C-alpha cells in the first residue's frame, strides 16, 4: 500500500503543475498586470508611472513564461509563472496583493468554515442515510412514494432559496437566530445553527435519493434474505448488513470531500456573513487578487488529490477484498 501511496503522490505533482499552469493562463488571459494595478490603485488620478511602480513593487513587472532579456536558466526562472506559482509546491503562499499573509489568513478563516461544514457533514450523513434506509424499509408503499416525491421536490429547489427562506422565516419572522454574522468562541453557536439547518435541509433531497438507490440495489441480494432468515431485526439488517455492503459507493462520494471541508461554502458563507475560506475565495476573485486565487485553487486541488487517496485507502478498510498495489 505504501508503494501505491507514494506513486499517487508522485502522480499528483504533474496534476498540480497542470492545474497551476491552467489557473495562471486563465487568470492572465482575462487580467493583465496593468489591470491588476488599476484595480488596486483605484480609479482617480492613476498615472502610468503609478501603474509601473505598483507592478514593480508587487513583482508583476516580469514576463509571464519566458524572459528573453535574461540568460541561461533565468530565462525561465526569472518569470512571473516561476516566481508566483512554483513556490506553492513548498506551501509558500506568500502575501495577497493587499499585503496580508495568505497562510495566516487561511489559518484564521478555516475554523469558521469548519464550524459549519463539520456538523453539516456529520449530522447530514447520519440524517440522510437514516432517511434513505427508512424509505427503503417502506419501499413500495405510499410512504416511500411520498418520500421520493418529497426528495425530488427538495432537490429541485435552488440552494439560494433555502438560504433566503431560512433567513426570512427563522431570522426575520420568528426571531430565533441572528440573520447573519459571526462571533468566535462560545458565542458562535447561535450564528451557526441556522446555516447548518439550512444546509441540512438543502442537501436532504439529492443525498437521500442517492443513498436510497444504493440501498435498494442491496436489499434484494441473497445475504439480506439470509440475514432475515436468521431472525435478525429489520433495523439490524438495514444498518449493519445493507449499510455495510453499500459503503464503497458511499465512501466514494464522502471521503473525498473530508479534506476539503474547511475550504468552506461560497453561498452559505457569503449570505450568512461567515468569515470562512469560501467567502475568502469569492472576495479574491472579485478583487482580482491573483495571489489568493492561485493559492486557493492550488490548495483545493491538493486536498482533492488527498481525498482521492484517502478514498482508495478507505476501500481497503470497508472491503477486505480490496488491495492497493
Amino acid at each position, binding site marked *: 500500500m505504501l508503494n501505491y501511496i507514494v506513486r499517487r503522490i508522485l502522480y499528483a505533482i504533474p496534476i498540480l503543475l497542470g492545474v497551476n499552469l491552467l489557473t495562471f493562463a486563465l487568470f492572465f488571459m482575462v487580467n493583465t498586470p496593468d489591470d491588476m494595478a488599476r484595480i488596486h490603485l483605484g480609479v482617480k488620478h492613476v498615472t502610468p*508611472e503609478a501603474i509601473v*511602480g*505598483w507592478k514593480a513593487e508587487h513583482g508583476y513587472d516580469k514576463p509571464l513564461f519566458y524572459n528573453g532579456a535574461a540568460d541561461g536558466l533565468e530565462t525561465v526562472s526569472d518569470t512571473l509563472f516561476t516566481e508566483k506559482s512554483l513556490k506553492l509546491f513548498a506551501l509558500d503562499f506568500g502575501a495577497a496583493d493587499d499585503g496580508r*499573509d495568505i497562510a495566516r489568513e487561511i489559518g484564521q478563516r478555516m475554523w469558521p468554515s469548519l464550524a459549519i461544514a463539520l456538523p453539516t457533514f456529520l449530522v447530514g450523513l447520519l440524517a440522510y442515510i437514516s432517511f434513505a434506509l427508512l424509505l427503503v424499509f417502506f419501499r413500495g408503499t405510499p410512504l416511500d412514494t411520498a418520500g421520493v416525491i418529497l426528495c425530488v421536490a427538495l432537490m429541485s429547489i435552488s440552494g439560494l432559496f433555502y438560504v433566503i427562506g431560512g433567513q426570512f422565516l427563522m*431570522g426575520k*419572522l420568528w*426571531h430565533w437566530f441572528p440573520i447573519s454574522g459571526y*462571533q468566535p468562541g462560545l458565542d458562535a453557536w447561535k450564528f451557526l445553527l441556522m446555516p447548518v439547518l439550512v444546509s441540512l435541509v438543502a442537501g436532504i433531497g439529492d443525498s437521500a435519493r442517492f443513498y436510497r438507490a444504493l440501498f435498494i440495489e442491496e436489499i434484494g441480494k441473497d445475504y439480506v434474505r439470509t440475514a432475515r432468515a436468521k431472525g435478525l431485526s429489520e433495523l439490524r439488517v438495514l444498518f449493519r448488513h445493507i449499510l455495510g455492503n453499500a459503503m464503497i459507493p458511499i465512501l466514494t462520494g464522502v471521503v473525498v470531500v473530508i479534506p476539503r471541508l474547511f475550504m468552506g461554502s461560497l453561498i452559505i458563507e457569503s449570505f450568512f456573513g461567515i468569515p470562512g475560506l469560501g467567502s475568502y475565495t469569492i472576495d479574491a476573485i472579485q478583487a482580482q487578487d491573483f495571489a489568493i486565487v492561485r493559492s486557493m485553487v492550488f490548495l483545493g486541488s491538493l486536498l482533492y488529490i488527498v481525498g482521492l487517496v484517502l478514498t482508495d485507502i478507505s476501500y481497503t478498510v470497508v472491503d477486505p477484498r480490496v488491495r492497493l498495489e
Partner: protein
Amino acid sequence: MRAAIFFLLFVLTACSGPVNSPYATVDAGKSIVYSAFDERPKHLDPARSYSENEYVYLGNIYEPPLQYHYLKRPYQLEPLTATTMPSVRYFDAQGRELPANSEPARIAVSEYEIKLKPGTRYQPHPCFAKDAAGKPRYIPIKAEELAGIDKFEDFKITGSRELTSDDFVYQIRRLAHPRVQSPILGLMADYIVGLKDLAKTLGQAAKAQPKEAYLDIGKFGFDGAYVVDRYTYRIRIKGKYPQFLYWLAMPFFAPVPEEVERFYRQPGMAEKNFTLDWQPVGTGAYYLAENDPNRLMRLERNPHYHEDHYPRDGDPGDREAGLLADAGKRLPLVDTVVYALEKEDVPYWNKFLQGYYDASGVSSDSFDQAIRMNADGEPDLTAEMRDRGIQLATAARPSLNYMGFNMLDPVVGGLSARARKLRQALSIAIDYDEFISIFLNGRGLPGQGPIPPGIFGHKEGLAGMNPVVFEADCARQYLSPPLEKGGRGDLTDVTSVQAPEKSLGTPTPLLQKGGETQEATCAKIKRRPLDDAKRLLAEAGYPNGRDAVTGQPLTLYFDTAASGPEAKSRMDWFRKQFAKLDIQLVIRATDYNRFQDKMSKGSEQIFEWGWNADYPDPENFLFLLYGPNKKVGAGGENSANYRNPEFDRLFERMKDMDNSPERQAVIDRMVEIARQDAPWIYAFHPKSFGLRHAWVKNAKPNMMAHNILKYRRVDPPARAAYQAQWNRPVLWPAALTLLGLAALIWPAVVAYRKRQKATAHA
C-alpha cells in the same frame, strides 16, 4: 423529543437580550454605534487609501490639519489639528515675496504655514512604548520576542506622545515613498515643490538596497515641506493652487510619526499582518481596537483625544431639528463604533429593521417598503417606517454621472457643427428624468451641467437650467396658482406659448397673455420636445437617423463595463432612447479591465462614467473637461478627450481665483461652453437616502467630512427597549414543526413494529 424541547427553550432563554441579537450580551446597553461594511478595506495607510469605504475608518482615526464644519452648508473648512486656517505667502521666480493680491501668473511658489495646537497626543500604540531606560521598547524587536506575538494585543506595553510638525512633514515625504504607492503622488508631484525629485531619488535608493531594508526617507533632501518649530511647518506649492487647502482636510496630509514606520518596517512584522496599512496610528477621536476585516472592525474612543467640542452653531433649522442639542459638549459622544461585515443587502436591511443597525441606506430591493412619494413628488417614509420611529434624511451627493462622447471619434467627436448638433440631439433624446425614475427610484437630480449642487458655481432653478436640453415649464406654472384677475387660471387667456428659439440658448420664455407679452416666472423646467432633437439631428446631416449623403442608417457604439443579466434592462432602455431618433445603438459590454483599456486608448465612442468630488470646489469638476488633462496621450481624467481652447483658457484663469462674483462669471461662461459643445450628456447627480432609528442623534448628512462619528450620539436604553419589542421570539412554529415531525415518525414506528411482529405468511 423532550430533549429537543429542552434544548430549544435553553437556546431561547439563555441570553439576557433578544436571542437573535448578533452582538455579545455584555455590550447591551453600552454607548455603541452599530453599522456595517460590505467590502473589506484594502488599505488603511493614510498615504495610500483613496476610497470612501476606507475613509469611514481613516477619517475618524487620523487628523489632518483641517476639517469640514459638521453642520454648515455650503461646506466650510475649519482648523482641526491646526490652531487657525493656514496662512499663505506668495513668491516670484526669484524668491521675492509678493503681495496677496498678485496676479497668479507672477506667483512661482505659494508657501502655506500651518500652526498646530499643542498638546494633541497619539492613541496608545506599541511603537511609542519605552523601556525603563527611556528607549523604544519594541524598536528594534528581537526575532524570538516577535515569534511569541501573534495578535496585535500581544504587545503588552504601549505608549503615546505629542503630535509635532515633524509628523506632518514626514507624511508628505511618505507620499513619495516607492513602497507606499500613494495614488496621489502623480498629482501632488505637479504641485508640491521637489516631490517629483524626491520620488525619483527614493526610487533609486530603494532599488539599491534589499527589499526588506528600512528606507530612511527623512535623510533625503526635500524642500517641498519643512519644519519651522515644534508646532509649525510649511508646505511649498508650485504657482498658486487655492484648492490645496481642501487637500489639507484629507487623510493624505494627516500626520504619521517616523517611529511608526520604523516599528512596522521591522523584519517579521509584515508576515504577521502588522503593517501601517492594517493597524493605523492616529490622533483622532477613535482608534482601531479590533481589525478583523473578515468579520468586524471596532473603533474605540481614543483615551488621549484632545479637547474638541460639538459645534455651537449651524445652518438655519439645525437647532429646530435638534442638531444643536449637544452644542459645546466634549467629543466624541459615543465610546465605541462597531462595523460588522454585511455583504448582502437583504440581511443588512432586515437587521436594520430589527434594530441591530442604527442606520441604513435604501437599496432598490427595500425602496418600496421604506419610501413613498408624496403628492409633491417628494420622498417620504411609509407608514411602516414612521411607526418604527425611523427618520429619513436625503442629500444630493457632490457627484455627477454622465454619458460621455469620445471627442476623438470621427462621428460623435470634434467641435464641428455637425458633431455638436448630433451630441445635442442625443442630449435631448436620452430622457434621464425617466432613467432616474425607473432605475434609481427617483434618487437623483437631472444634471444641468458639470457642477453638482452644493458646489460653488452651481445654480439652482431656471438660472441653472441647461437650455440645450431643457426649457421652462411655463404652462404648468401658469395653471397652478390662482391668477389675481379672474380667479383660477383660464387657458383661453393664453394665446400662445413662445416656441423655443432655434439657437437653443434662451432660458427665459415669454408668455403672451391677452395680446400683452409678459415675462413668466416659471419655476419648473422640462426636457425639450423630441422634435427639437430630430431637427438637430437633421441639421447634423442625419435626417430620420440616416446619413443624408450615403443613406446609411446611423449606428453608434456604446461601451460599458455593465454586463450580465442585471444590466440588460438598462441597456435595453438605452437602445430605446437612441431608437427615438431612429439611431441604432450597438452595446459593446465588456469587463471593467477591457473598458479601462479602451478608454486609455481612446477606442470607445460613447461611454458612461461618473465623478465624486474630492473637495467642494468647481475646479474638481471642470478639470475633467480641461484639454491638457485628456485621457488619451496624457493619462488624465478628461475621459472625453474634450479640448476647447476658450474653455481651457477660462479654466486656467478660474482655478486660481477665490470664490467671488468674478469667478462665478467665468464659471458661467465655461458651463455655457460645455453645454453647447456637449462632450457629455449631464445625466444625473445621485441623491443619498439615509434612514436612521429614533435613538440615533446628531445625524446630518455631510458628504465631504469623514470624521463624523465623533458627533454621533445614541440612546442605548431606547435602543434596547425597541430591540426587545421588535425581536420577541415566535415559538409556535417550533412547536408545530416538532408536532409535524412526531406525526410523521409515529406512523413509521407503528408500521415498523407491526411488520416486525407479522408472521412470514402475513
